[in-house]
């Protein structure tokens, strides 16, 4: 029963993919859209069903042995437990919403069918990633989603910059994947299995575990996660990934794929609990990423870039939580973040749609009359992400900060600053986009209009979710924590007692958020300052605007040297090596040429050599 369900759940998007690939062009755009969306919706329905009557026991489905290693087999199997169900819920849920959205958004693109094909494929791989029963199955999904993100970032392939962005994303992910693989190798050789359930049993029961190797494995796996979830130092691909169509940014680079890293670490929480040192690293990396990304987001003018960096920063917060062992908190924030970040992206998408592809906020403004729904929904989402009571973001972010506070004040400070900045740049975005007067061209001004219902509907739904999303894990009695409890080896550390500290923290957070919003209000609404043109940007702003020149640095440190080396090998080493081989031939030829001189045709010489030979032999033998 379950098996067939799961297979349907898994294969529905795949079938959609096949349909769109092979028949999409003929079928026509509307059919393509419907099929694509339906196929995802089917899996969503399946998920709901499973979610509805899921018992405590996780369901394991092994189809067949896939890869055989001498000491163990890796089965081609699936694992449905509470964690994967949670993820499935919002992957398929938000997935279907965004498909819906794309029907209208991509309607003018002549390659709509391949767009939907890729989206479906992505959902398929994402599901594989989530329900894989062992590390390698997860790895299939892991690389698969990477591939889809490559395809979708480079969707408009005629622009080589986009292609570069896509390539960059894929390769940076691959760097992480290598870490992942190494992690898999170590785990495999330590425990002779890659299966999550058996791993959990072994590790939780094992007495003497080699801490070093565990730590190494955890570290390697974390590198993998960092690659996928855009953490320092592997985060630079995410902002570039905004080259892809906006729905892609919403689905892949905000809501689902980039959370895969968190999913993986949560999946392997028992492993990471064994390696506190690595946990600290994770926490620190997360915090720093949150801060750095936030600072960059402060000054970006591309509406999607802002959102991208905010995503990075939010992911950083999640990793902070993971590092502190508060997996359920991280999950909570993943979910709420999925809601409001998807909403924000789609909103920005609708704005861009309205302005016919304009992304620079300096050329926007005053859109709130033109597109009210977009405005309202984005406002709600912005409030949510800034952590205003009682929206979803408030609860999740507050949980994280609280955990940080209890663990380490410094982390809490960093986190708080990051979230204050969040509030600032989000409202900077809101004000620049929707308030004051329109700064675009006349021609655009006349065409300003609210986006069609297919676009606004998902916005509304997501806005609602980002408003009420918090209820799934209210402090005190958290449904989510209870639901996830069976996953964690350690008992979920008890809910925070609501003493004064907690209330104080909440207050501080809220005040911080309000301050942030206030500054934005002062700067961009009252003074109505417009960010200056790229040329005029100076000082710290310039550094921030250029993202601390990290891309340039990477280029100088890694990419250029490799290419230089490559041409060096190609031009020097290769030629030298073959010259060496030819050299042998040349030498013999030279000898031959000299030899020809000796055979000079004079009988006298020949006879002389003859006699010499005779004498030599005789003397050598007999004297």
């Amino acid at each position, binding site marked *: 029963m379950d098996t067939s369900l799961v297979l349907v759940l898994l294969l529905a998007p795949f079938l959609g993919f096949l349909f769109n690939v092979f028949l999409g062009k003929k079928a026509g755009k509307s059919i393509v859209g419907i099929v694509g969306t339906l196929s995802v919706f089917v899996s969503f329905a399946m998920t709901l069903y499973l979610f509805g009557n899921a018992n405590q026991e996780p369901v394991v489905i092994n189809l067949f042995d896939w890869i055989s290693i001498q000491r163990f087999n890796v089965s081609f199997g699936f694992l449905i437990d509470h964690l994967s169900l949670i993820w499935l819920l919002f992957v398929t849920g938000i997935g279907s919403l965004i498909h819906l959205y794309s029907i209208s958004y991509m309607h003018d693109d002549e390659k709509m069918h391949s767009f939907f094909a890729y989206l479906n494929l992505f959902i398929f791989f994402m599901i594989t990633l989530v329900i894989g029963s062992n590390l390698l199955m997860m790895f299939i999904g892991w690389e698969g989603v990477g591939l889809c993100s490559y395809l979708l970032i480079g969707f408009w392939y005629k622009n080589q910059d986009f292609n570069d962005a896509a390539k960059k994303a894929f390769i940076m992910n691959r760097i992480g994947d290598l870490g992942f693989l190494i992690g898999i190798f170590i785990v495999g050789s330590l425990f002779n299995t890659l299966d999550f359930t058996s791993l959990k049993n072994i590790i939780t029961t094992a007495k003497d575990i080699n801490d070093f190797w565990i730590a190494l494995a955890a570290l390697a796996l974390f590198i993998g996660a960092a690659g996928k979830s855009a953490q320092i130092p592997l985060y630079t691909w995410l902002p570039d990934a905004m080259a892809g169509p906006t729905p892609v940014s919403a689905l892949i680079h905000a809501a689902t794929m980039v959370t895969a890293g968190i999913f993986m670490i949560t999946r392997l929480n028992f492993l990471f609990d064994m390696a506190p040192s690595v946990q600290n690293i994770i926490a620190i990396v997360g915090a720093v990423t949150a801060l750095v990304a936030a600072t960059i987001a402060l000054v970006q003018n591309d509406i999607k870039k802002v959102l991208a960096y905010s995503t990075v920063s939010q992911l950083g917060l999640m990793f902070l939580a993971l590092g502190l062992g508060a997996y359920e908190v991280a999950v909570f924030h993943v979910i709420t973040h999925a809601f409001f970040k998807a909403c924000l992206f789609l909103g920005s998408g609708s704005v861009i749609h309205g302005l016919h592809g304009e992304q620079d906020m300096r050329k926007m403004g005053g859109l709130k009359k033109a597109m009210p729904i977009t405005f309202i929904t984005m406002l709600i989402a912005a409030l949510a992400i800034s952590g205003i009571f009682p929206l979803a973001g408030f609860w999740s972010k507050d949980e994280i900060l609280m955990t940080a506070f209890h663990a380490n004040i410094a982390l809490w400070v960093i986190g708080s600053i990051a979230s204050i900045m969040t509030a600032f740049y989000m409202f900077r975005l809101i004000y620049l986009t929707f308030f004051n007067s329109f700064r675009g061209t006349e021609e655009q001004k006349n065409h300003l209009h609210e986006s069609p219902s297919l676009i606004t509907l998902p916005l509304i739904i997501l806005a609602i979710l980002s408003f009420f999303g918090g209820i799934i894990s209210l402090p005190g009695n958290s449904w989510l924590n209870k639901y996830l409890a069976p996953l964690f080896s350690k008992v979920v550390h008890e809910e925070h007692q609501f003493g004064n500290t907690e209330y104080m923290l909440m207050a501080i957070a809220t005040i911080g958020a309000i301050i942030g919003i206030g500054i934005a209000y002062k700067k961009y609404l009252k003074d109505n300052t417009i960010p200056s043109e790229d040329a005029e940007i100076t000082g710290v702003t310039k550094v921030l605007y250029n993202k601390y020149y990290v891309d340039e640095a990477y280029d100088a440190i890694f990419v250029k040297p490799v290419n230089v080396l490559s041409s060096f090998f190609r031009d020097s080493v290769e030629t030298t090596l073959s010259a060496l081989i030819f050299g042998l031939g040349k030498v013999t030829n030279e000898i031959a040429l000299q030899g*020809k001189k000796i*055979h*000079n*045709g*004079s*009988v*006298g010489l020949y*006879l*002389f050599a003859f*006699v010499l030979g005779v004498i030599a032999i005789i003397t050598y033998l007999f004297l």
Partner: protein
Amino acid sequence: MNNILNQIGIENYIFLSVILFCIGVFGVLYRRNAIIVFMSIEIMLNAVNLLFVAFSTYHQDAQGQIFVFFSMAVAAAEVAVGLAILVSIFRNLGTIDVGNLKNLKG
């Protein structure tokens, strides 16, 4: 007959013919006139013939002397052929200097 050989001793015959042989060799090496080279080769052969005879006396058996006839006949045949070649060379080149035969080399 036999006692003469005993008086002189076989070694001396050997030395003599070796010396003759060497003279022949040097002749072949150092003279460039084909005719004289032929003659030097003849000297070599005859040196050997001499030794044959000496040995056959030493061993008291006739095979050696018979062999000398063989070798003489052969030498004659050889020289005949050689002279024939020489004639055609002289017709073509107008010289019998062995040193001029250097078209074939390398």
